[in-house]
């Protein structure tokens, strides 16, 4: 019996450039962040006025409230959806409308920058190497509140979608036959993005969250760690099946760089050693 460790190619960072929004939001941030960093109150007010007069720059928030399914009857839902919906309704992290007319429409230069930051950061996390998540070192005062709101809303959306998605549960169970390697890696990428949203949120707003909210966020983070472990398991098993075929002399793994790093690290630590049986 001979054994060898997997060899991995570096992920292809140019993949990120194919995604609409990556270059565009980066260019937007490169112009707008330095602009507001050096602006005084009068200048910021003028920027806000210009932005507020441009309807294309409005940002709608609390999109995650769509998971409430207010019109759905419980009996019409699958057990998975029903259970998740109950959890959703009990969550301490939901945002409530301040009034019936509240459409969660936000305007201002801070919202514009915050949206660019979260969109660009998520693409970068999913497809680039050596990333400083959301470039928090450049976070500006004017966008901080907006960015926190978008982080929490984004985290809620990703979390509840994954909870309601049967595929997530197949990955958690390590159902190799039903989940292919590419799909598993994509879900792993989503878990990575969500964990980074949660970490950024904790870093920025941890002190303002209640103990109950912090506990819930921690449990979400742990759930995503389980998803990543499920992805790793599926990759190991797929790897083993593939490597047992005759004539294979090399194999590469590409995917979300952070995820691949994690899998690589697990393998090098002996957690997922792959062996070739002859």
């Amino acid at each position, binding site marked *: 019996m001979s054994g060898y460790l997997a060899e991995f190619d570096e992920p292809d960072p140019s993949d990120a450039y194919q995604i*609409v*929004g990556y270059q565009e939001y980066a260019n937007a941030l490169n112009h707008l962040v330095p602009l507001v960093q050096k602006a005084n109150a009068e200048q910021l007010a003028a920027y806000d006025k210009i932005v507020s007069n441009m309807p294309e720059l409005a940002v709608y928030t609390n999109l995650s409230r769509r998971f409430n399914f207010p019109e759905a009857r419980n009996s019409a839902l699958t057990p998975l959806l029903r259970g998740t919906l109950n959890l959703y309704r009990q969550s301490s992290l939901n945002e409530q409308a301040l009034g019936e007319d509240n459409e969660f429409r936000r305007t201002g230069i801070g919202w514009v920058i915050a949206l660019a930051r979260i969109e660009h950061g998520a693409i970068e996390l999913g497809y680039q190497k050596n990333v400083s998540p959301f470039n928090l070192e450049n976070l500006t005062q004017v966008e901080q509140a907006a960015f926190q709101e978008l982080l929490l809303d984004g985290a809620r959306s990703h979390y509840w979608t994954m909870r309601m998605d049967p595929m997530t549960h197949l990955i958690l169970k390590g159902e190799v036959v039903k989940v292919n390697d590419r799909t598993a890696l994509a879900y792993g990428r989503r878990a990575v993005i969500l964990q980074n949203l949660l970490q950024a949120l904790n870093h920025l707003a941890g002190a303002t969250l209640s103990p109950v909210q912090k506990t819930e966020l921690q449990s979400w983070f742990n759930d995503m760690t389980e998803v990543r472990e499920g992805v790793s398991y599926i990759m190991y098993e797929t790897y083993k099946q593939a490597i047992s075929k005759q004539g294979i*002399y090399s194999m590469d793994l590409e995917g979300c760089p952070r995820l691949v790093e994690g899998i690589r690290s697990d393998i090098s630590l002996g957690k997922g050693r792959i062996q070739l049986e002859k």
Partner: protein
Amino acid sequence: MMKKCFFAVCLAILLGTQGTLSAAIPRNVKLELDNRLIPAYRTGHLETVVFSGAAIANQVGGTLYDEIDEYLAGNNIESLGVILARSRFTLLTQNKAVKPEATTKELLLTVPHFQQEVQQVIDGELRPEIMQENAEAPKTLQAFNDTLWTIHIYKNDLSNLDRTAVMAAQTMQAVLLAGKVKPIDRDKLSFDFVAARNQIVSENENRLNHEMALRVARVQLAQEVLDTSGERDQRLLAAFSMDQDLKIIRDFLGQQRKGLFGSVPSPNLDFIERVVITAKQANQELFATADQLFTGIHWWIRGRYGKGVAANGLLKGAHVKKTPAAGFALNMPRNRPIATNPFSKDNSEYSPYVARRHENIWSWENGGFSLAIGTDIEIVAESDYFY
């Protein structure tokens, strides 16, 4: 090599179905759609879209095209003719040799798409309101912005359609000259793209005429604002407008010096330069911050509303990896976009079409194992989550 073999096998399977077509999509064509065309479209591999789409287009016929289009629509994808036309066109505009060459059957599918786009210009359907007779001139800087936006979009339309007409004419000519075209099909491919192109060129000169007049008028209004207004937001708008107009007028006159657009009256550059340079010297900080603000906003709008050519607009296509500059081209909304409430129930189209990109892009399955078994094998991406 393995990749070629795989393609060859698929083609063989497709060819084997000749004569057995029925109204339902044959299993092997459906496999081709599911396993290659749709994933390639969703992941931005335009060469594969053309290869696979052409194989299907050349194989099937009659009502099967409708069945296929219906199947694609069920997957939120436009018709076979449209995605094939757009993918081939995008690759051709990058001066790539696109394989396989278009055949008569493919042209019968794609030409109506090209023809419809060109016809819209000829009929004046896309012409902005400001270019209509008795249109009222804008009176505020914001109104000028909105108007010039429509002219800018129209310029892109004309430029794209100009190239479309040239390429469609060349492709059609090559196919017709090669012979083997049935008389009935020859009639369907009789649209005169060369004559249509001449109309597009003429319409572009008409557009330039309006655009230059608007820009000169805007510089004058901006000068007035800078001289009289103390409102910083208006002054920022004025400064950015002046900068932009001077640059565009200079570029235009440069083109005229090269012999282009001779029929369009030349703006008075000396006057414009004098006004803008004087204003700039008096308001240096204002001009610098205006440039930063509006350039940032410009990129933000492209990020928020722009659509690429693949994956229902979420991706730009794999060609961007080799030619980064190609990544700047995006399809933008024709009219000035307005963000709408994604929870509204008035059945209006969502704007932007995806509320958050980060909720979608994670599912692009660009990862996975690639195995080397004496040679490379191509693994096709699949995802139920990427639209």
